[in-house]
């Protein structure tokens, strides 16, 4: 691996870790305040206020939600970290994108990307390297940042395509725009860092722009 590629992979890891730990901090902060609320109620009970068992049950449920949210996040973060160890192999792209986007969620929200997970087809399988695929996804999502205009929305979809798999970002003329320079830069960065991936740009009859990331079946960029 050359220094440039290594540095870019480190930057990619850093961004994902920053996003995921930010979310984790939110989970812990919320749980901390819920525990504080329980403490407030116990303190009130000591001064003669009635302790309502239904309220205690409610607090227990609220804490459980945060514990499960945190556990999911840590599980996805752990899988992401171990993707470095995993060699080339059969990959379910829908599952991998779902997992990756849970870590990228905070960044996605700031980019106004509507991540419609219902559109992530299951069993979209192909041979690939999980780390490279996630790096390609990251580059792909990052280029959408300046594209999603204020108040705009881009929908992400995962599907089988040809002999490989495709991740698509789609948006109307007021939602998505990507200039030639950004598109060319994405295509060349993908070619340098994740040769198994390629990117295309097209327009639907209704005028939606479709930016597609192809895995396993090289497409001519256009």
């Amino acid at each position, binding site marked *: 691996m050359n220094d440039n590629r290594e540095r870019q992979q480190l930057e990619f890891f850093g961004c994902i870790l920053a996003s995921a730990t*930010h979310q984790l901090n*939110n989970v812990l*902060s919320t749980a901390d305040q819920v525990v*504080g*609320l329980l403490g*407030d109620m116990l303190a009130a009970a000591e001064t003669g206020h009635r302790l309502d068992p239904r309220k205690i049950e409610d607090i227990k449920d*609220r804490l459980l939600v945060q514990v499960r949210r945190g556990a999911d996040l840590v599980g996805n973060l752990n899988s992401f970290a171990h993707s470095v160890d995993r060699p080339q192999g059969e990959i379910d792209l829908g599952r991998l994108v779902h997992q990756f986007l849970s870590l990228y969620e905070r960044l996605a*929200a700031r980019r*106004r990307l509507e991540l419609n997970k219902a559109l992530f087809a299951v069993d979209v399988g192909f041979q690939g390297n999980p780390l490279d695929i996630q790096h390609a996804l990251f580059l792909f999502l990052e280029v959408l940042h300046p594209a999603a205009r204020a108040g705009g929305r881009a929908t992400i979809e995962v599907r089988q395509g040809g002999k490989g798999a495709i991740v698509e970002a789609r948006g109307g003329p007021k939602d998505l725009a990507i200039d030639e320079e950004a598109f060319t830069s994405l295509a060349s960065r993908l070619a340098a860092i994740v040769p198994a991936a390629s990117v295309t740009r097209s327009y639907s009859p209704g005028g939606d722009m479709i930016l597609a990331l192809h895995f396993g079946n090289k497409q001519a960029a256009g």
Partner: protein
Amino acid sequence: MDRVKVLIIDDEEELVATLLERLQMRGLPAEGVLSGKDGLRKLAEGGFDVVVLDLMIPGFSGQQVLQTIREQFPAVRVLLITGHGAEPEGVAELPPGAGDILLKPFRIETMIEKIKEFRENPNLPNSKTAQR
């Protein structure tokens, strides 16, 4: 403390709900919203003295909300909260226009102390450090 009405702006729904309950248990009237746009709409209705604002809200960002508050609601004091607390010893730069900043997770007592300081010292200069 004289009555201070607080508006919390944070996209973490459960965090907002819990902070509201805890403030209200302490006799502080408070309301909460989950986006910057809704926050500015609420402020336009009037009656709020302090805004507790998450810097990292998606969409209309915390920085944009802060700037708009300074321009349109100059009397309202802003207490920033952020999960971006990686700085050593909890020190973070305070953006211009904010009264103070708290790093998540924070103690509610610390938050109330800051609100109280705002009330008692309406012209308090900006602090340069963040606390938990």
